């Protein structure tokens, strides 16, 4: 017969919890986004870093404008602009060492370019001549991911593999606010935390997933708070403050490199342009909102800091602008040339060795191309005769 030892108790000790509870407090993000520019803390910022950020931001803004123009001229099939988000793009690239890996989403061609990839190669996906135009191994930049958040588990796996091999390589993966609703976001963060993989997740929260605002995307206190549920720290930063983003990402990268595990960074920013050239942003947001964010411009914030500290004069600013203009002119000129395509490339990299079926199909295409060339030749001769 069961007898309660003491009235009012269950009479036994419950089994212990499956794992010791950890204190969530150190993982919690700050209540307000972390800022440096225009705050008293900005005095400590390194002049060289500020100048580097400024040069990249000006180039980045010019790059975004040029790519948008190329789209209007039909040279790009589509361009998801990162205008207004240049601070995140640039800081992500600059926070990494050469041996580290960057995992960009489709809006992050600027980060890819800031990492050192030729802009023409970074844009082949959006021009439509090849999906990945750069060598991902040479640059340690994964292909631009158009499916949402699917690149995040890749970053975790790569970072995990590097650690298994004893290499102190960090992976930085970029995703938007909409992408945080995807299952792959959840799975990637969970795997990263369980494996303590050296990964940094950078969420650029620009307020909209195409047209859907954040309050229809999540009920979380902030996207950075999501980190706590996985057991990793979440950090909230002003995504238009390049110095702050660079500082937070650099800390997270160092932490990952030294075995401290992953970090989730939410950078609060704004997409000044529409989702792509094919989008009409006036259907879901107001001009007043855009104006408000234009007054918090990432390029202007750094410029103000530099000028306020006497680190930039008009001549230096002009030199930076000229450098950006030269980059844009070069990009424009090279993108205005039609890419040289070989249709037989369609079969070149499906498998290491083509299957018998693909060999047959390649022969079929080859015959079609030969017939086309012959017809074109005849047309050419006819035209010549006339």
């Amino acid at each position, binding site marked *: 017969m069961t007898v309660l030892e003491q009235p009012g108790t269950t009479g036994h000790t419950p089994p212990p919890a499956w794992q010791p509870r950890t204190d969530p407090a150190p993982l919690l993000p700050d209540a307000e986004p972390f800022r440096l520019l225009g705050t008293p803390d900005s005095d400590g910022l390194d002049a060289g870093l500020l100048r580097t950020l400024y040069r990249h931001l000006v180039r980045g803004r010019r790059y975004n404008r040029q790519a948008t123009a190329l789209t209007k001229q039909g040279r790009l099939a589509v361009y998801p602009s990162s205008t207004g988000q240049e601070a995140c793009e640039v800081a992500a690239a600059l926070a990494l060492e050469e041996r580290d890996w960057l995992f960009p989403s489709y809006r992050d061609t600027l980060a890819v370019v800031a990492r050192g990839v030729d802009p023409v190669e970074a844009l082949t996906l959006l021009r439509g001549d090849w999906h*990945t135009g750069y060598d991902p*191994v040479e640059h340690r930049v994964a292909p631009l991911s158009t499916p949402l958040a699917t690149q995040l588990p890749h970053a975790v796996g*790569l970072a995990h593999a*590097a650690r*298994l091999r004893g290499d102190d390589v960090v992976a930085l993966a970029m995703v938007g606010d909409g992408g945080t609703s995807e*299952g*792959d976001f959840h799975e990637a963060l969970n795997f990263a935390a369980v494996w303590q993989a050296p990964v940094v997740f950078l969420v650029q929260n620009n307020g909209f997933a195409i047209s859907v605002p954040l309050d229809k995307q999540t009920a979380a206190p902030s996207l950075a708070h999501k980190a706590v549920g996985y057991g990793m720290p979440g950090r909230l930063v002003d995504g238009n403050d390049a110095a702050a983003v660079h500082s937070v990402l650099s800390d997270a990268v160092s932490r990952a490199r030294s075995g401290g595990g992953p970090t989730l960074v939410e950078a609060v920013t704004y997409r000044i342009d529409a989702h792509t050239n094919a989008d009409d942003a006036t259907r879901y947001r107001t001009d007043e909102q855009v104006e408000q964010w234009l007054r918090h411009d990432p390029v202007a914030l750094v410029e103000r800091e530099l000028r306020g500290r006497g680190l930039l004069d008009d001549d230096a600013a002009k030199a930076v602008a000229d450098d950006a203009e030269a980059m844009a002119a070069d990009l424009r000129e090279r993108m205005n040339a039609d890419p040289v395509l070989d249709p037989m490339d369609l079969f070149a990299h499906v498998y290491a060795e083509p299957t*018998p079926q693909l060999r047959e199909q390649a022969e079929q295409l080859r015959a079609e191309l030969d017939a086309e060339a012959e017809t074109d030749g005849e047309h050419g001769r006819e035209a010549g005769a006339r």
Partner: protein
Amino acid sequence: MSTTSTERTSTGAAGAGTPARKPATMAQALNTALRDALREDPAVHVLGEDVGTLGGVFRITDGLAAEFGDARCTDTPLAEAGILGTAVGMAMYGLRPVVEMQFDAFAYPAFEQLVSHVAKMRNRTRGRLPMPITVRVPYGGGIGGVEHHSDSSEAYYLHTPGLHVVTPATVADAYGLLRASIASDDPVIFLEPKRLYWSKADWSPDAPERVDALGRAAVRRSGTSATLITYGPSVPVCLEAAEAATAEGWDLEVVDLRSLVPFDDETVCASVRRTGRAVVVHESSGFGGAGAEIAARVTERCFHHLEAPVLRVAGFDIPYPPPMLERHHLPGVDRILDAVARLQWEDD
């Protein structure tokens, strides 16, 4: 290279000096293949749900974590997209992941990673990021499994360019094909017929037969009357049907495809041209299934040799039934012989 193998499910008496052959299960052969691959290549990593301490729900990874450590045989969180997605990243860094999906129908969460990344990564990067990933999927019915434990999912995979789709039917092939799949520089969906896990054959774990290349079918039984084209769990059923058919005077050839992608047109068509009649047998649903592709290919290539239309014997076009009804769904000997009887024999 010869295209027509004449392998049998068990070979004859071993000569002097040949390692001893003793009864082994397909599960043991698969386990040995994983162990040998882990031993020979430090880039090989096994990961999945319950593959470590437990050794997998089917015990295919039994003892691997103990021998090679958790880092080489890893119990992952329970998330298939995460498992395959992290395997992609591991492959990008030069590892050779072997992923276990616990059951056929539980592999579906990983479908986007498979279709959008595993299958396409080599192509989209012009060969710079190959994906030497093997995805092991226990598949098919006939084990009395409850809902979502008996799917035949091969059609979803074979329709995705960039993947290889391989399935063994014998103990020796379980070893040989799995080793070849792991060695492949391309992703392989390795479909393991659950109901053959405990099938036995004489086999030598010390000197197992190797398979040189994926994409070669094997003639399991030579015959002259008609060809049964099949794979995986339906191979033993077809062999049984072929034995039963002798009573009717039919001498059936049985071709085990072993690999659906690449597809061995040569071996299949050579057989059909010889026999003039063909039935494709698989347990997955017929509509839009592998059999539809095979029947079309055979008709396109062997039309003038055919005495009758190519027939299919497949599972019905229904959601996989509850286990107490599955025998009515799965192609059995009688249904196969009925199809053979409909191949327009001269005395009909």
